[in-house]
């Protein structure tokens, strides 16, 4: 009896060793990372939905270079420290391509780790610094804040130049960067903002800011930051009897803004975002399948899908997933994705970035008219 037990332990042990010794590296792992939890978790959910659909589609069509791809999901909660540990974990999982992170303040520290480990990455983070540090592994599939802020600021000066404008940010890398560029864009057209303020993201009470805006007679706010704070500011402004028009960046494309702002408050929100790829014929089929699955492909959903397409096409072009080959293919190629044709300049920024001004109308956003 005792002997039998010992034997079975030995066999079990050997089996375990065997399992450890022969890991199957046959599949290619690709990573996505972003705020899967935390205040901005809805953006993480968009990225995840987009990437999962893309991976399923690619695998259904035979995968990449004959191999299936496997998705690894990392959660940084928009916390730079957590982003670094996610990046290290991704490196240990031997991913060959990364899509992420989402918050610029997470992407910047994490990208150093991917660069050291020689993993190419596609990101939607818009802070200029993301691509300004000379890293060769970063490709940005969205425009930059200086472009976005310039478009937004110029637009405000043109359409609302006669009103009093305030510039507000949330002190994050993304928010402050964008607000600074908006301020430049406004001043570039000869209009001077009357106030420049910062708030703390994650709080609930912005009545102090509202009182200040009201006292200064501000009617229009150029806001750099995320949608959750804008919703609260709108609600509280309404309670204080202040009518505000807010112009924000790409993050305002989140439909959570509409429900959180309450009533029809969100109709006063304008934002800059890449042209709506849901309207493009190339994306029609994918858009329809997202909607069949009850996922509205707004915000970052299609970008995550496009990032996976980018990886697949670059790998097919390079006929390899080795860093040197893949990176070269990405840097020199031009790729047809659901968000349009992507090609990159020497820094890794989009060659043809485009921003349009949108406005919320009920539950949908459309081009500002």
């Amino acid at each position: 009896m005792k002997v039998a037990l010992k034997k079975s332990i030995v066999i079990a042990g050997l089996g375990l060793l065997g399992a450890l010794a022969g890991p199957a590296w046959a599949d290619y792992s690709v990573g996505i990372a972003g705020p899967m939890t935390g205040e901005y978790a809805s953006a993480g959910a968009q990225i995840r939905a987009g990437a999962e659909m893309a991976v399923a589609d690619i695998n259904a069509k035979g995968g990449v270079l004959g191999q299936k791809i496997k998705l690894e999901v990392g959660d940084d909660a928009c916390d730079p420290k957590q982003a670094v540990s996610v990046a290290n974990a991704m490196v240990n999982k031997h991913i060959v391509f990364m899509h992420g992170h989402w918050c610029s303040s997470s992407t910047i520290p994490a990208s150093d780790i991917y660069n050291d480990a020689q993993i190419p990455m596609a990101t939607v983070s818009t802070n200029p610094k993301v691509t300004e540090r000379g890293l060769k592994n970063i490709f940005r599939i969205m425009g930059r804040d200086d472009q976005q802020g310039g478009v937004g600021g110029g637009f405000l000066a043109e359409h609302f130049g006669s009103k009093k404008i305030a510039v507000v940010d949330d002190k994050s890398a993304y928010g402050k960067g964008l607000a600074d560029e908006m301020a430049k864009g406004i001043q570039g057209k000869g209009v001077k903002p009357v106030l420049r303020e910062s708030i703390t993201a994650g709080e609930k009470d912005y009545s102090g800011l509202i009182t200040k805006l009201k006292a200064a007679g501000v009617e229009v706010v150029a806001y750099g930051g995320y949608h959750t704070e804008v919703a609260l500011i709108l609600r509280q402004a309404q309670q204080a009897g202040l009518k505000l028009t807010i112009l924000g960046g790409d993050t305002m494309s989140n439909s959570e803004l509409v429900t959180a702002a309450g009533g029809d408050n969100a109709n006063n929100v304008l934002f800059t975002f890449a042209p709506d790829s849901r309207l493009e014929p190339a994306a029609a089929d994918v858009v329809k399948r997202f909607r069949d699955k009850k996922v509205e492909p707004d915000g970052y959903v299609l970008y995550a899908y496009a990032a996976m397409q980018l990886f697949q096409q670059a790998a097919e072009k390079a006929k390899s997933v080795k860093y040197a080959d893949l990176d070269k293919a990405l840097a020199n190629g031009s790729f047809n994705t659901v968000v349009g044709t992507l090609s990159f300049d020497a820094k890794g920024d989009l060659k043809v970035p485009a921003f349009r001004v949108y406005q919320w109308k009920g539950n949908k956003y459309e081009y500002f008219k």
Partner: protein
Amino acid sequence: MGQFIQQLINGLTLGAVYGLIALGYTMVYGIIGMINFAHGDIYMVSAIISVTALTLMSAFGISSVPLVLALVLIIAIAFTSVYGWAVERTAYRPLRNASRLAPLISAIGMSIFLQNMVQVTQGARVKPVPTLMPGGIELFTHAGFSVHLAYTQIMICVITVVLMVAFTGLITRTSFGRQQRACEQDRTMASLLGIDVDKTISYTFMLGAALAAVAGVMVTVYYGVVDFSIGFVAGIKAFTAAVLGGVGSLPGAMLGGVLIGLIESYWSAYLSPEYKDVATFAILILVLMFRPSGLLGRPEVEKV
């Protein structure tokens, strides 16, 4: 002038909420000498419960505002008290005689657990509720600045004052209050005199949770937006309020809350919203330098 009055109103409202949460910290500290870090999350749980209750009520077609408010308060207080009791029973009571560090770690764990539980079961998205009491009164206009008093702000201040009166009565005049104060002074002696210490501590947690529940309901109605992460910031602010007022002192917690609310609102309106937390914590440090036990706290007397 208009700005000054407006910020007084805003600050008092904010301070009332901080104060109610701070009471929970201070009561628990008073009785078991431990900072209950999960308290902020208890408040978050109550806010989520009130969103559920509000949604249910609009589904049943109950539309009278006072009735809705009363029902939501009752539901939130009932459920949140159960949470308060359960947290104490599972996370703190087994560690009653362990070293001081153990329940502290357990509290932090409980806080993380509650947050993640709500995130997983309720989703990470922010939960909006329709405005229950829209509008307010325009008090006066001074130099082009109109001062607004929202109906929700009146509600928050009135409910807080009523609660404070009831609560003070409970602690100073009832037999539960006497037992609670006895346990606070000397747990061993209290148990020798026939007080069920465990039960008293349980009730204290439930009472603290009930006050946090009221704060949760009011915040839901006032700001209209709730998510699983609101407990952290509110917890830190309320904890600061408790320390500022003197941890262990009940009027101190309320005073600390109101002071922090006022400091925040005046600082952000006259100087910059950017540095309001710096101002709050700088004042906390100053107060603690000159009065280490807080504004109304009694210095700890070493028992011989």
